[in-house]
């Protein structure tokens, strides 16, 4: 396209320098550039330190490596020549622009010193504040490269400055393949995620570690040779936190984004394979062996990933009664599964009626979260089922229940039984048989079960010993309300009650004394 122009003039270079000095948002990002240069120079360790030069009244940032160093040729044609980097296309190197070094001028240094040696040469390149430099031949040979940046600063500000430098290095270099030390202390951290369960997978040139996570705050990180390229929250794969390091990944000019080219897409395919294919199976195998709550939380996230669930549906991982195990497919019934905290009588009775009962540790058990994530809403056994346990009827109450049964015959009631109180159940309910579990929403049957001591049962029992017919009628009114039997049965009840009273007059009592308002 445009034709080559004349060589750049000195003002032009100066202007370009002005422009490039502020290439990064954070001035201290120059540390990252120096560490990157050291890595590309083949060092096996980078030492960074910050100290204060009291004599000169400035802070000194020093970056030392044991890399291959520079000779005059490299100093003139790569270090001090903008955009002249020869690393482009070399996957063993990270840098490629040739402008990283000038970022040291972003902190407005009083001087920058580069001591370096290579092939018998030993050089000090002394940069002035106006960015001109002196080439100084050193008397002593030097191994590797040492860069010192002198920044005007009072002693009192050194502590914060040092802390900022350390934080900057930790952010960019914590997963570096070589040891990076700050004031002698290694900063390197394992290449892993902050998650209890994580899965590692590697292909030549690329390594990933993935973990299920909260979809909103899922973490992602891209690294080249361990150097941070780009990381943040809000992963491109929702619900998957991951870190990927690959020698093929590249960054933009200002290092604030990873370049989304073909290599990026390849790396993401490796991440997807690890996350969506390999990890779920691995996780389910672990679930079967160690019931760690954290693994269940991870499984809850995994179940929400698109396309993963069908492959895991048949694996039995949910504990049931009597050491049985259910898979998700087993639990995928019309109403969904039930759960219980122990193998109690109700759970067993419900299971005998065909209910799938999952054993959990409590209502906050992550197994329930996992079920929800798989589209299965589990309710506690007691929420769906109840077990009527019969209580003996005191002989003096038998006439009352017999009378009640006779009054309610019109509703299809054949027997009346007394049962133990059940929380959340109407005071009267229809059942098929005592001792069997019944669904709360489908309680049907010819037996009327009355809960002892609840509602009208107790006071009516007392009254029933005096006048069974009257007590049974009042109790039947309450039962009709509980059974939602409608208004039609009201007239019928009164007619039956009066009819029975006519046919078999109850024991006469003295007329009620004149009652007064209590």
């Amino acid at each position, binding site marked *: 396209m445009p034709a080559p122009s004349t060589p750049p003039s000195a003002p032009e270079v100066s202007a370009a320098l002005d422009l490039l000095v502020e290439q990064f948002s954070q001035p201290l990002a120059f540390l990252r550039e120096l560490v990157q240069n050291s890595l590309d120079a083949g060092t096996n360790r980078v030492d960074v330190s910050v100290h204060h030069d009291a004599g000169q009244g400035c802070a000194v940032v020093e970056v030392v490596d044991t890399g291959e160093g520079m000779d005059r040729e490299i100093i003139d044609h790569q270090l001090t020549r903008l955009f002249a980097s020869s690393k482009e296309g070399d996957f063993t190197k990270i840098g490629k622009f040739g402008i990283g070094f000038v970022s040291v001028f972003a902190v407005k240094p009083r001087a920058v010193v580069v001591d370096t040696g290579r092939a018998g040469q030993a050089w000090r390149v002394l940069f002035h504040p106006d960015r001109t430099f002196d080439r100084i031949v050193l008397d002593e040979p030097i191994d590797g490269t040492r860069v010192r940046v002198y920044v005007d600063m009072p002693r009192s500000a050194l502590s914060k400055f040092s802390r900022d430098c350390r934080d900057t290095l930790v952010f960019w270099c914590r997963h570096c393949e070589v040891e990076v030390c700050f004031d002698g202390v290694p900063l390197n951290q394992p290449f892993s995620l902050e998650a209890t369960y994580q899965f590692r997978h590697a292909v030549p040139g690329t390594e990933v570690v993935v973990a299920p996570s909260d979809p909103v705050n899922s973490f992602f990180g891209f690294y080249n040779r361990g150097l941070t390229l780009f990381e943040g929250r809000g992963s491109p794969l929702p619900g998957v936190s991951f870190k990927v390091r690959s020698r093929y990944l590249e960054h933009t000019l200002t290092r604030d984004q990873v370049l989304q080219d073909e290599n990026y897409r390849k790396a993401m395919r490796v991440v997807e394979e690890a996350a969506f294919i390999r990890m779920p199976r691995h996780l389910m195998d672990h679930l079967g062996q160690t019931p760690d709550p954290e693994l269940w939380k991870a499984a809850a996230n995994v179940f929400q990933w698109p396309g993963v669930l069908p492959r895991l549906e048949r694996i039995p991982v949910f504990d049931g009664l009597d050491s049985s195990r259910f898979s998700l497919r087993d639990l995928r019934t019309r109403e969904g599964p039930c759960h219980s905290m122990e193998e109690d009588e109700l759970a067993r009775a419900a299971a005998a009626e065909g209910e799938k009962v999952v054993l959990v540790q409590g209502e906050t058990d992550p197994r329930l979260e996992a079920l929800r994530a798989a589209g299965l809403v589990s309710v506690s056994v007691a929420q769906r089922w109840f077990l009527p346990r019969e209580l003996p009827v005191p002989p003096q109450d038998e006439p009352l229940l017999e009378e009640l049964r006779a009054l309610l015959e019109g509703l299809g009631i054949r027997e009346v039984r007394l049962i133990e109180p059940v929380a959340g159940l109407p005071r009267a309910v229809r059942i098929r048989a005592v001792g069997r579990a019944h669904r709360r929403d489908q309680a049907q049957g010819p037996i009327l079960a009355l809960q002892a001591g609840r509602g009208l049962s107790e006071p009516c029992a007392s009254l029933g010993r005096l006048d069974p017919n009257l007590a049974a009628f009042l109790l039947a009114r309450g039962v009709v309300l509980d059974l939602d039997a409608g208004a039609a049965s009201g007239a019928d009840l009164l007619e039956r009650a009066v009819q029975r009273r006519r046919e078999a007059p109850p024991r006469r009592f003295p007329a009620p004394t004149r009652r007064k*308002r209590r």
Partner: protein
Amino acid sequence: MSLLDELRQAGRLDSRGLFTLDRARARQKMARFQLTDPRRYVLELVEAAVVLGAEALDLEFGKTLEVRFGGQPLPAEGLAALDDHLLTAPTRPVERALRALAMACAALESLQVKRVRLESPSGFWLERTREGESSGLGDFADHRLLVEGAGPGRSRVWPEEAVLAGEARYAPIPIRVGGRDLRLPPDLRGLGPVRSLPAEGGPRFRAVVARDGEASTLTLVSRGVVVGRRSPALSVPLQAVAWHDDLGRNASHSDVVEDHRLRALLEDLSGFGSWCAEALAVSLKTGELGEEAEESRNLLVHLALVWKGSLPDSFEAAPLLQDHLGAPLSLAELQAQLQSLGQVPVCWEAPQASELGFRIVRLRSPEELRLLRLRFGEAVQDAGERVLHVMRRRSHRQRWERSPRPATLPPGEWILRRSLPEPPGEVGLSPQDTDVGSLLHVLYRGRLLESRELPTPLSYVAVLDFQDLEIEEDWSAASDTESFRRVLERLDRHGEGLYEELARRGGPWTPAESSHLDLAFEMWAERGRVPPEPLLSLPWFPEMREGMVSLARLVSRKTVFLVDPDDVDLPFDLPGPVWPDGAFVRADSLARRVLEAILPGRVAPAALELARLNELAVRFRTRRQPVLPESGDLLVQVEIESGSVRGQLGLVAGAQTGILHLLREGVFLQTRTLTPSGPPFEAVVECPRLQPSQDWKAIQTDQAWSEVLSFVREAETRAGALLAWSWHQGCLPVQARTAVQLALRTWPDLAEEAAAAPLFLSAEGLVSLDRLRRALEQGEDLLTVRDRDLEPVPGKLVLPESECALVRQLLPQARFTSARPWLDTQRARAEFLLRPLHPLHLSGRSLVCRTLRPPLEGEVALVEAGGGEVQVLLEGRLLQTLPRVLPPAVRVVVQAPQVQPDARYRQVLQDEAWQELLGSLAEEVGLLAGELLDGLPKPGSDEARALLSLLAWPVLPEPVRGLLEEAPLLQVLPDQALGLAEVRRRMGRKPFLLVSPRFGLPRDGRLVVQADADLQLVLRAVLKRNCRDDSENLARDAQYLTHLKKASRLPRRLSGCLLVLAVEGASLTGEIGFPARARRGSLVALRQGMPLGQLEMPHHLSQAILEGSFRLDAGGALLPLTRDQRRELREHQVRLYGLLAQRHPDLSGRDREQAREALLAFALEERSALGGRSPAGEVLERILALPLVEVVGGRQVSLAALLAEDQARGRLACVSRKPLWNWPNQEEILPILPVGSPVRELCTRLLGRGHLEEVSSPGLGQVLTGALQAANRSRTAASAWWGSTLERLGERLNAPVLRDSSERKAGAAATEVESGNPEADLLKALRREFALVARGRVRKRGSRRLETLDWGLRPLGPPVWISQRVFLNRAHATVRWIRDHFVEDPALVSLLLAHVVGLLNEADDAVDDPDEREFLQELVRDLHGSFAE
């Protein structure tokens, strides 16, 4: 020396240099890497237009992109060298524009566009194509950029539009795309109005205070483009946009540089935030915030808490708080109240009082409390105490005002009473009140202020009336002032005077007086005063040895021992010196208190002294010889005899200590426990020189005791030697072994005497010291184990750990090793050998099976599924089953010589031999697969699946793998057999689809392999491709389709109905009809015109096709109707039946019969609604009037006519089938009521069973006669009342017929109801019962109903019914029975009332089921309480 000079010292200056630039590479790299997204070049165009001062930027996105903007013309020379500006730091607007355009062009270059043309009003144009760059001159009105070849691609939308909409939305000039301005006002959502701060030349802000809990968000705009987004930590959280053209930007123009410019901006923003917060506070005060007020208030409270410095006035005046009445309250108002109240009262729950005279802050959050504490410090106090004080004071004062009382004791019987002068009052002793503690009624100005109990041991009652009295602030009592205390002291003296007067008066005293005197005695004793003379010398106290004594006599004794009344007598036979100096008094509680008070420190309980005396008495009565008792535990025994000391010592087994019994002249003195030197012993010694202690329970440790002790120690040594010798001789029992070991430990020299005797316990039994020595000499280690685990190990000597200490002492050279590993392995093997023998054959069905080749033994088989395991045998027994070692289609049972178990015989050792065995098994599987492959299994068969599953096994031999991949084992749809290798080739890089065999239909031409789940896993593992299982979706679709298919056969319009109504309900629309033939109703549910399914019709017979929000389950099946839907449907049914009743006379034939039965069934079901104004009631009225009942003679009569018949005759005669002859009596209706018919059921319900009299053929004549007679009687009775009423009845069908006295006189037929009294009494009883029991809403809504309750006559109807009023239907049998019998059976009233309230619940929306339940409970409780048990 300067820093630079110092740094130069390190070497020799070679030369000076400058940075250089590789321009070509710079352009190349800038083009590719500078922008994070090359499409952001449009933002650079925006920047260029803004800095040039253009009025707008116009973009046209088509096949090409054309951008136009005005402004200062770009100079030709600048455009000519455009790329030079890529690397310049611009200062002037034109330079900035040129650099922006340069960056844009460079980015376009990386997009590989065909042509870029740039024109300037300066007359210069520049064009770049892939071939090169050209320029020239022209005449142009605006700047124009033309881009060709950067189209949007397949998406058809230029990404640049989205970039502009997102990042240039806050530009200062219009950004128009196709004439539409993309800009939007900042979408700031927070509290209060958005506020702006226009600036002159500096940054400009637009912001709103963020909601509580939200972080600040800041959008930074520079030169028309968003250059960064931040969440800065500001003192006031803001949602803000800031415009600042001088912000530094990074090289990619994607973010700002964090330099001094940004810091300055943030500081400005903080100031702006404070201003916004203050403005928000002002808005809160002026009430402008509306719904946001509460949230704003919370935020301002929070801000006030973290505000630096003093709070601004706007915050002080803003109503940040709320008082206890809910009114707003500001800090300034609280400050003003603090001046007068002295505190800031706060509360969490508003107090129930309103008139308090001050305002309380009602706290709603902990932050409010923190704010108040921060602002007012310790002045913030809980208001509860203050409110309580105000309320209490008010209550006490009212109580005082209502309690006038005279200053005298109440009249009645008093032992003594005296008037008191000042303050006036009276004091007295009451014969009823003799408890400890006196009572004073304090009057203030003639009214009772308090009644207080006085803390005195006396029991008098006093009343005092004070004219001047200091009263507690809350008016609860008199203040405890000095003057009041003096009055109380005076009163106490007056009270004491009463008692002295009573004592001096002398006896005899009444029981009440004695009780008072007891108190006085105690009082005097406590106060250390001598009681009056008559009481002092009375013989009041019983001494056990002297009899009754006076208080004066007891004062002379040293100690008074108090003996409980129940204690035994003293041992009077003991010698004198043993007795203590004291008196033993049997004392009750009063005597005890008096003596303890009068003789302090000299009174003691006698229990200890009594026990000592009794025990001494026993010992003196029994004396003994110094001889050891004969016992089986005694091992050896020696004599002790020296002078006057004599006795015996024996070593014993089973003891721990030495026991020594000491005697003096045969009297047992003491048993002492000694630490034995060797084995435990027991001894008895008699020594007359031993001195007993004073209490005869021990001896004194003097010379005699030392002598005795030395004799005992000497005897112990003799006994030890005797023990060792006896053990050696074998004349001791085994139990003595422990004692012998103890002896040897104490006296090791004795060991040799017993060396040959077996002494030490081992796993092989007892072994001697010599045996251990021999083992050590042979270099053998001694194994040790815990005592409880002692078990022999062949060839080893195993000792329990308890034996080791003595062995170490006697044989210091002994070495010990733990026996645990030997024992564990030994036990594991023993357990293993107990396992049953396991066959070397595989059980169950297999596809193919073969015997393993030697040296292996066993079998390998291919199975359909459930395999993968290896059963490893050892010595013919199953050692371990290893799951998932093999592919799921392979099972193996193997016994191999090289397999080794672990130490516990539970697992196979995973060593090299095991790996070798796995390799051998792989070969065997390969051979087996080859055999199966020779049979050419069909694709999809079990054999094929099993073979394919082998492919997932990584150790499968490669030749076999190749064979399997080539074999056509896969079933590919529609009907093709392919090998895996072929599938792989055809598939290429495309993904393919797997479906399960059930739903195997190729859908879009992709390669479809039928595979079950297991096979899918195998294929995924082998192919490593994108395989998808669509079976789930297909299954769900199929299930849903089944429902839809079934539903599609349902009708969409009603047919075969007698009548059809359109339904336009709240949630249901469609049609409802009455079926002409069908006996069962049905409801077809529609959604958007499509049938969803069919439900059984609830309530009444009808058919409907309705559209509505019907619920479906996950599989598409229709769920039952909701309660609301059922109710709505019932309303439509009632309408339908109303219409049916209207049309009924026009119907004929089967239609008429069908309608008749349905109407009767409707009436039976809904009879409770009769007479009501509900729609159902109105329909029922119509039904009653319809001629639905056939009577003898063929006529059809209405139900109303039947009731009238019953009323007239007292019964209703009926027949079940048509008689063969006509009914002679035309005046009596004789309806045909077939048994089981709805009309019969209805009549039975309404009239009562007793009123239905069936006339059967044999008795027809007889019944006929009776009926005729009844008719004659009734004709007379009805002549006045019924004669005309029958005619009027039809007219007045819709209103109750109220009877008055004139009507009652009309005829004899009215006698049944005319009495009046029973009916009125029943009404009265019902109302009274209701008034007694009903509460809450039932009472509120039912009172009026019960007040207007009356009697009515209806041709038909339930016992009671509700219209606007409630009526008791005297025509109904049940009601009549109640009316006639409720006097002798009052429970009938409760029955009827409960039913009435039930109807009230049905008819009145304000009364609900819980109300009725509450009423029933109250009724039951009331009834139970009213019946005598």
